[in-house]
């Protein structure tokens, strides 16, 4: 009986040794596989786990989606997968101490070519510097008066009933803009255009051809 027990124990130990050997071999093979394709599984997994990718795939499964909508979602999905993939590639890069390269030389004056920066200038439109909900702009003037630099935009209020309006901006030093203040033209004027600047203000033309003057210091209109 004792001999039977010893034989059984020996058999079991042989099984265990065999199992351990197989397990070790599999583990080694996996490691070799991972090292020959570094980070790839993680990158696939990152794409799979990306919330945006998942959301878009969910949308594609919606039967109510139109053909046009489907094309849009498919395009977004491709972009989202690409972004997730690239982010994962970056995240797999070494996490060593971050040392940013020195700042490149500033582009000398090339970054911005100001037209007539220190002079009076008349220009068309607002160049996107006046919010459409404040005024619709026909043209503008920029210049310095009394030690301050101004931008003045002429046009009308944004919605009916239209009324002529000026938007005056006193530029803060070193800044591209300032507070926008709006002044409404006298009744009956539905649109303003700046014709020219004087020492004290601006000569304006209403839509019916009537001339007006706007005093910049007093912020008031006069015939």
């Amino acid at each position, binding site marked *: 009986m004792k001999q039977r*027990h010893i034989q059984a*124990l020996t058999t*079991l130990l042989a099984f*265990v040794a065999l*199992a351990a050997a*197989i*397990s070790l071999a*599999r583990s080694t093979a*996996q490691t070799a*596989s991972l090292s020959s394709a570094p980070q790839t599984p993680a990158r696939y997994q990152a*794409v799979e786990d990306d919330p945006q990718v*998942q*959301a878009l*795939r*969910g949308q*594609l*499964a*919606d039967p*109510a989606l*139109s053909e046009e*909508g489907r094309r*849009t979602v498919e*395009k*977004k999905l491709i*972009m989202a997968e690409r972004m997730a993939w*690239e*982010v994962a*590639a*970056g995240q797999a*890069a070494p*996490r060593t101490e*971050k040392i*940013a390269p020195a*700042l*490149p030389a*500033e*582009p000398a004056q*090339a*970054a*911005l*070519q100001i037209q007539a920066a220190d002079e009076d*200038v008349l*220009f*068309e*439109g*607002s*160049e*996107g510097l006046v919010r*459409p*909900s*404040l005024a*619709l702009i026909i043209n503008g003037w*920029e210049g310095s008066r009394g030690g301050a630099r101004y*931008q003045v935009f002429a046009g009308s209020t944004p919605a009916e009933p239209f009324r002529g309006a000026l938007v005056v901006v006193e530029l803060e030093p070193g*800044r*591209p*803009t*300032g507070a*926008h203040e*709006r002044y409404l033209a006298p009744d009956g004027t539905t649109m303003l255009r700046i014709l020219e600047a004087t020492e004290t203000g601006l000569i304006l033309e209403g839509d019916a051809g009537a001339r007006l003057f706007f005093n910049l210091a007093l912020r008031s209109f006069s015939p």
Partner: protein
Amino acid sequence: LEYKRMKPAGWFLHQLKHALLLFLVALLLGGAPGAAAQTITPPENPVFLPVVIQRGHTSLVPLPTDSYYFYMKTDPLAKARALGCQLGERDKALPGKQESLVILAFGITKYQDGQYGASGMARGGFSTVDQIAEAVQQFGLGYWDCTDTDFDSRLTVAVGTNNYNHPGEYFQNLSVTFEHGRAWAQMVNKIHLWFQNVCPNRCNGQVSVMGANDIELAWSSPDDAYNWVKGYDSASNFPLINFGAAEGCPNACGGGGFYWTKDKVMRVTSEGSIYVLPQIYRPDGHNAKQWHELSKYSVTRFGRPIDFAGALSNYGACQQYPNDKLCKEHVIDNTPEQAWTQLNNLVNGATVYTHDDLPYLTDIRWTD
């Protein structure tokens, strides 16, 4: 019965033998316990099965970032690096992983001396796409650098212009075009490559880039804006954020001599690679209602709502210029939290459609 006849030691060995045999079989078939997590091998041709997820409402307001009307006149690279660093330091100081989006708005589209670019937020200004790209790269680099030991927080920089055109008889901004849109997309692609290939350690995957356009319905014809968007779509590898306003919508979209139908608004909000991060400036909730109505229309038109990326507020700019007429009269001074909540409550409280969570919240201001 057989077990009853065995001696205790024999019975134990018999049981142990069975257990070990089972263990061995399990090992041979499926590997050792815990090995499953290590056995992912990359498929040659991955098949992406659709994942149905639960879209739903969230009441967690994202942490707002600062976006900028970026003035290119004074030291743009140093300024960009410093502003990016400022956000990086913030994200590093916060617990956990942060996901931020920042819009850098570079003004109106320009085409000058054979080069595409933008006004750099200055009247009469012109910066080329290459100069703009450099500033964006420095912003991203500053973020990466100053997140320091935080390798997990992430930033998406949306590089913005707008669709400003002038309807007057004396002047037209002829650069709101297909070609400009394409040049903008190529610039975005190049910036991405810079983060991938030039930034040390690929910026550890912490910085991404997208295009952006402040599409204002009162600033150009629908066709000009759509052409620009199509141009962007023709070359871009990355999405476009529309951070505009829906003037006059839903009943009479447009203004300033430009008339849009809702279908034409859809072309710049729901087609192609566009995500919308709308201006939700008005404290009375009007802006949020406009976008909600447009999103409902998108459901009837395309079978899906507008893809909102979040909300944009103007609170920072109002803090900078409190005497600005529209700020002073509380017309455009929603706080970031108000903006996001107004939009989220409508689009995620809707009965006709649901919407994904709005992941981003950003507040715009001017740089010096």
